């Protein structure tokens, strides 16, 4: 149980949110030119690191907006939240 600061609604309990996987994955410009391996790499392969991870989250039981979060996966410490399309405020 931890609090997440929704960029739109403010601080809410974690159970109002849904995790949406790794953030900042760019869809290939020409999918038809990729090999199956390259396409699978884009589609399925995720970093899943222990430590600082950039993630997408959705305030699904609130404003239903997507946003990004920087989270330390080893201790659930949230380093930052920022809106879609914005640059991460921390490295």
């Amino acid at each position, binding site marked *: 149980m931890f609090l997440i600061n929704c960029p739109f609604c*403010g601080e809410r309990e974690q159970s109002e949110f849904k995790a949406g996987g790794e953030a900042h994955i760019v869809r290939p410009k020409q999918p038809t030119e990729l090999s199956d391996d390259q396409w699978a790499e884009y589609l399925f392969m995720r970093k899943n690191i222990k430590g600082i991870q950039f993630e997408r989250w959705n305030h699904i039981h609130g404003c239903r*907006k997507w946003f990004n979060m920087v989270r330390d996966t080893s201790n659930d410490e949230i380093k930052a939240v920022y809106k879609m399309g914005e640059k991460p405020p921390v490295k």
Partner: protein
Amino acid sequence: MLNYSNVIENDKSYPGLQMREIKPVMKLIIRGKKRQFLSAVGKSLNLLLPNEANTSSRSDQLTALWLSPDEWMIFSNEILKSDYNNYDVEKLLNKNICKTNLGAVTDVTDQFVLINLKGDKIFDLFETGSPFNFNDFKSKKGLVTQTILTKIDIIVHNQDINDVNLFVRRSFSDHLFSWMNDSASRL
């Protein structure tokens, strides 16, 4: 209006808590992002949409609830005739918002059930099943939040002190209301 039947048959009363369904009440969801959208809605309804998060605004006839940065719920303050399903407000918004491609208007009158709660035990009830922190919320008239109550999505509107409107999807309303009664009987 498609559905005339009450979800909640009887008004319920407990020490410090009264609960009843209010119907028929017109409910619309409107969505839009552009500045012209906001001004067109304002002019059409003579009501400024709240742009601050978790707040509401009110005119004589209508209340507008902030749901997200581009989504609001508008509902009628007065009870409407039950045989009437043509809303002038919806028609007006369709003309000024939809036809002009500024935003979207959806009639959710039958989708949402409005339960009104009165009394000083309202938030004691909510706190038995919601992760939302109501401490500041309960003393500020007009605040709005979407959250969960016993795992069901709800919209809570702090209409007045000890006077709260709760919107819940119709299919969940029967279960939610029986849960609320069960919980209220143990407060």
